[in-house]
């Protein structure tokens, strides 16, 4: 019976061994920053809970999110997660095509009404009644609304779905619009980045299907476990910033010595993402490590914030999860200072701690 099938059943059917399954669970727990005891909870949930279908829609996008996801640094994570999600509907990955594919959507609604996760890559263009993105003879925005009506929660993959990205850059001719501005009656988890880091994507989706709840989100709707810190704060070149050692021009002496890329436009000081800790391609490298500044691709409206090569002048609070700690300076002058200082200090120290299990579900 499809309804009582668990994730574990599905994985076994796809030839994933129990050993691999257990390894995946502990990798995921570690990737989520949870203590080792949570691996057991993930195992239990995937073994016993009925499988939550994931429908993966594509609007205006370049498929870089999918490319990142299927090249997850740990191939095991990719295999496992793909065996869980690719069954239902994903334009890029599924075998079905044409009418047969579109029928799958209706079948999912019929069988899993209110219980499936809608993963959206890209966004809908709203100008000309949505005519700039047509799928199966209809504007994409209609398909999105229809599928969102019956889903449990939405994951907005990448900067397109989360903020709009390049297709929404000025003058945004098609009126490309992020998911949360089109679907307002369902919870939306934003996983920005162009693309997001593969481990972040597998982590978020596994968390949602294993624990059957949304990860803790910041005020902008991003999972705190991956988006609560600025790249700058965990950058391995940070000591050079602190010491005033900057690359003045690409390929100068400072560049060869691995100095801070701030002056050549690095957006690390204002970008919330996990690149400086998780890195890319299985922890191999990331933009700053390859000698180029961060473009700030996980931040809202990053295409329209001026040149990629001009230095950030305002390090002020951009509304991220750290806002309380960041903003403390502005409100601390009065008599309440000590309480506020204590709060800022607690969150600052907590950020340094390796053990995040206290924040787990």
């Amino acid at each position, binding site marked *: 019976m499809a309804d009582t099938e668990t994730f574990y059943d599905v994985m076994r059917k796809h030839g994933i061994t129990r050993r691999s399954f257990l390894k995946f669970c502990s990798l995921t727990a570690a990737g989520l920053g949870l203590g080792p005891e949570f691996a057991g909870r993930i195992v239990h949930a995937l073994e016993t809970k009925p499988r939550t279908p994931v429908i993966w829609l594509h609007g205006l996008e370049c498929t870089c999110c999918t490319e990142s996801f299927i090249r997850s640094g740990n191939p095991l994570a990719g295999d496992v997660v793909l065996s869980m999600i690719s069954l239902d509907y994903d334009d890029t990955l599924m075998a079905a095509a044409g009418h047969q594919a579109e029928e799958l959507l209706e079948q999912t609604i019929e069988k899993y009404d209110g219980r499936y996760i809608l993963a959206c890559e890209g966004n809908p263009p709203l100008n000309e009644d949505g005519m700039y993105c047509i799928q199966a003879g209809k504007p994409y925005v209609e398909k999105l609304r229809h599928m969102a009506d019956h889903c449990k929660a939405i994951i907005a993959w990448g900067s397109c779905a989360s903020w709009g990205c390049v297709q929404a850059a000025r003058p945004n001719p098609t009126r490309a619009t992020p998911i949360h501005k089109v679907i307002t009656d369902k919870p939306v988890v934003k996983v920005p980045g162009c693309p997001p880091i593969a481990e972040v994507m597998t982590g978020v989706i596994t968390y949602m299907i294993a624990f059957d709840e949304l990860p803790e989100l910041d005020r902008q709707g991003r999972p705190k476990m991956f988006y609560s810190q600025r790249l700058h*704060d*965990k950058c*391995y070149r940070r000591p050079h910033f602190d010491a*005033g050692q900057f690359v003045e021009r690409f390929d100068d002496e400072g560049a060869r010595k691995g100095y801070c890329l701030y002056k050549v436009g690095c957006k690390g000081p204002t970008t919330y993402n996990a690149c400086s800790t998780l890195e890319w391609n299985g922890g191999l490298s990331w933009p700053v490590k390859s000698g180029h500044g961060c473009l700030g691709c996980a931040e809202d409206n990053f295409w329209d914030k001026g040149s990629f090569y001009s230095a950030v002048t305002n390090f002020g609070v951009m509304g991220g999860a750290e806002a309380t700690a960041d903003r403390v300076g502005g409100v*601390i002058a009065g008599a309440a200072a000590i309480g506020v200082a204590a709060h800022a200090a607690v969150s600052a*120290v907590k950020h*340094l701690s*390796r*053990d995040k299990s206290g924040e787990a579900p």
Partner: protein
Amino acid sequence: MRPGPAELVAGFRRIRRERMRGLPFVNPALEVEAIGFRPDGPHRVGVLLTPWFMNLVLLPGDDGWDAAAPGDRLVHALPAGQLEFTVNRDEQLGTFLSAVLLSSVADFPDQRSARAVAREVVQQVFAPPAAAGGRPIGRRELLTGRRAS
């Protein structure tokens, strides 16, 4: 002779004068100050406040970290838990470890308010995690290693 907090302050005052002139993220209301440094085994731990950052700093008491590459991350146990530090290497100050406490110090209106946060940080760092949460650890929690929420 390994540098102490006074040398650290002198070194960063020089950086402020020589390299940080005119940079937009420098907060003119703040000055370089070493706050709350105290011993941690052979090492010393405290907060280094400058007009452009507030870091927790570990000054080594031995040469244990000299082999680490600058930019490497090391985990160091303090009463508050396993904290992650980055290796710094300066021509004059040698090797020391730092961990960023706040993304920006641009919003502090004055030295006094920044110092208050720094002092509190030092307290938190030397308080066991249970006390940092404002509640003593129970026997059951102690035995199971889990904290009730």
